[in-house]
């Protein structure tokens, strides 16, 4: 078995991993980036729509353009990328990572490990929808890969289940490519995607959005032939008998959420049940001192820009640990209160470094007061919704205030006003 000793190993070559690897290299650490696919970029490669990069590059880019900016930085910094590598095992006790690739099995022995493994789409089998199991049912990301990378169209008549942004974007994409998109069903009484995607992906093409509606059965032997839709009560989400409607379609596209991917380290680090990702502190450190994490395996972010910024922070913190050893600092745990869903980081380090909280509201609010502390920051935000994270900057002064007040935990709440 080939053995490679190095400073830092980054697992996953998407937005977070590319940013972390570039930062580590800039700080003088010998770094290798491991990628499962042939090339870096992750899901950005197939997201050909625009809207990326407003925070990081101050301009609106498409996914491939955003990825390309970082690919250039990777080659400029002469970062070694080991692609088409599959990680078999992460062993934090021995500080080893075992991979398999075309040249065989390799054992990496890094001083620090950065996990940027992203998220996976929730699969059809996870929805427990009764009926047959025919061909023609795809997650939105798989359909996107077919259409945007491989030049295949998944079918003729499509229905979309779930109104997440990828589902809305695929409704438009499939329409433009000549498919007949019959509608989008969303179990919740509100859309899971951004309002602007409802406007430009559905309304522009007269694709109906059916709220409080879901697919309750799929039909067809070899290929999907039809689906049964049913309405649900908006508050208790119970199916309403008698509202069944059969829709003929040969393709069902699923946009029903992303699940952070942490199987490799889940036995060694703490995860958060709401974020469904690994818990990190304000330096992207997990609960294991050797392991850092950033991106969608920590919490599912709305914007790739945020993922890049967290990747840079993970790279910085890992570089510091490699050079100076692990630094203990007082960590204040973050506790959720009213109307707060996913939130990261979950520990605030009481050092001088500023950081950002990313907070997902659990419901629509015209106006809400985001309270951190609760008395450290109180900020009124308009138009809060579950499809959009709020980001709140924590400065050195805020940290001073936390110290002065002797807070043992930081409570985060969104109060409806």
């Amino acid at each position: 078995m080939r053995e490679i000793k190095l400073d830092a190993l980054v697992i996953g070559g998407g937005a977070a991993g590319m940013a972390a690897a570039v930062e580590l290299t800039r700080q003088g650490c010998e770094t290798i980036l491991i990628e499962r696919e042939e090339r870096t970029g992750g899901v950005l490669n197939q997201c050909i729509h625009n809207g990326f990069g407003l925070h990081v590059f101050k301009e609106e880019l498409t996914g491939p353009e955003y990825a390309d900016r970082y690919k250039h930085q990777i080659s400029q910094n002469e970062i070694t990328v080991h692609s088409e590598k599959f990680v078999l095992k992460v062993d934090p006790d021995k500080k080893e990572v075992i991979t398999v690739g075309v040249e065989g099995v390799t054992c990496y022995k890094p001083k620090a490990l950065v996990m940027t493994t992203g998220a996976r789409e929730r699969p059809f089998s996870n929805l427990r929808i009764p009926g047959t199991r025919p061909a023609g049912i795809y997650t939105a990301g798989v359909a996107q890969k077919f259409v945007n990378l491989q030049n295949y169209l998944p079918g003729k008549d499509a229905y979309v289940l779930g109104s997440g942004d990828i589902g809305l974007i695929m409704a438009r994409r499939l329409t433009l490519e000549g498919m007949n998109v019959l509608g989008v069903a969303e179990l919740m009484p509100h859309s899971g995607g951004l309002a602007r995607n409802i406007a430009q992906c559905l309304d522009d093409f007269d694709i109906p959005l059916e709220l409080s509606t879901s697919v309750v059965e799929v039909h067809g032997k070899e290929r999907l032939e039809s689906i049964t839709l049913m309405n649900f009560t908006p508050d208790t989400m119970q199916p309403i008998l008698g509202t069944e409607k059969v829709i003929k379609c040969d393709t069902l596209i699923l946009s029903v959420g992303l699940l952070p991917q942490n199987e490799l380290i889940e036995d060694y680090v703490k995860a958060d049940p709401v974020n469904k990702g690994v818990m990190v502190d304000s330096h992207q450190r997990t609960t294991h001192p050797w392991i850092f994490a950033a991106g969608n395996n920590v919490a599912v972010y709305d914007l790739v820009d945020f993922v890049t910024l967290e990747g840079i922070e993970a790279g910085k913190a890992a570089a510091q640990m490699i050079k100076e050893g692990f630094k203990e600092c007082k960590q204040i745990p973050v506790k959720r209160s009213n109307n707060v869903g996913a939130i990261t980081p979950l520990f605030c380090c009481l050092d001088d470094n500023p950081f950002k909280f990313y907070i997902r509201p659990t419901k629509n609010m015209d106006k809400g007061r985001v309270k951190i502390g609760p008395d450290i920051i109180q900020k009124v935000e308009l138009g809060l919704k579950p499809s959009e994270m709020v980001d709140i900057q924590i400065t050195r002064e805020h940290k001073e205030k936390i110290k002065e007040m002797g807070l043992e935990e930081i409570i985060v709440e969104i109060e409806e006003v």
Partner: protein
Amino acid sequence: MEKRKITCISCPLGCEIEAEINGDEINIQGNRCPRGKEYVINEIKDPRRVVTSNVKVNGGQFPLASVKTTGAIPKGKIFALIEKLREVELEAPVNIGQVVYKNLFDTGFDVVVTRPVEKL
């Protein structure tokens, strides 16, 4: 007088903007920035969209290159553009920014490649 509710697509905030249209006079409410006002006025007078899609590439590492319009084109021209793009075949290698169509529909905007495709 006509009243319309328009969701601004200029940024992820997606403001719900109410517009009162009196002939040439448009009064708006609910925008959080000047871009919202500009968007709604355009949306009423001449709705436009940036369009992204793919074109075929021969002899490359991928069969497709993604493309975009360099500015927003009239909404009514979206499908005409898609039809035009179906006829395009580029030869690898292609680079980001490579022009596929210049001055598309006399809009002053081009269609450019957004993904590099290396020659195989």
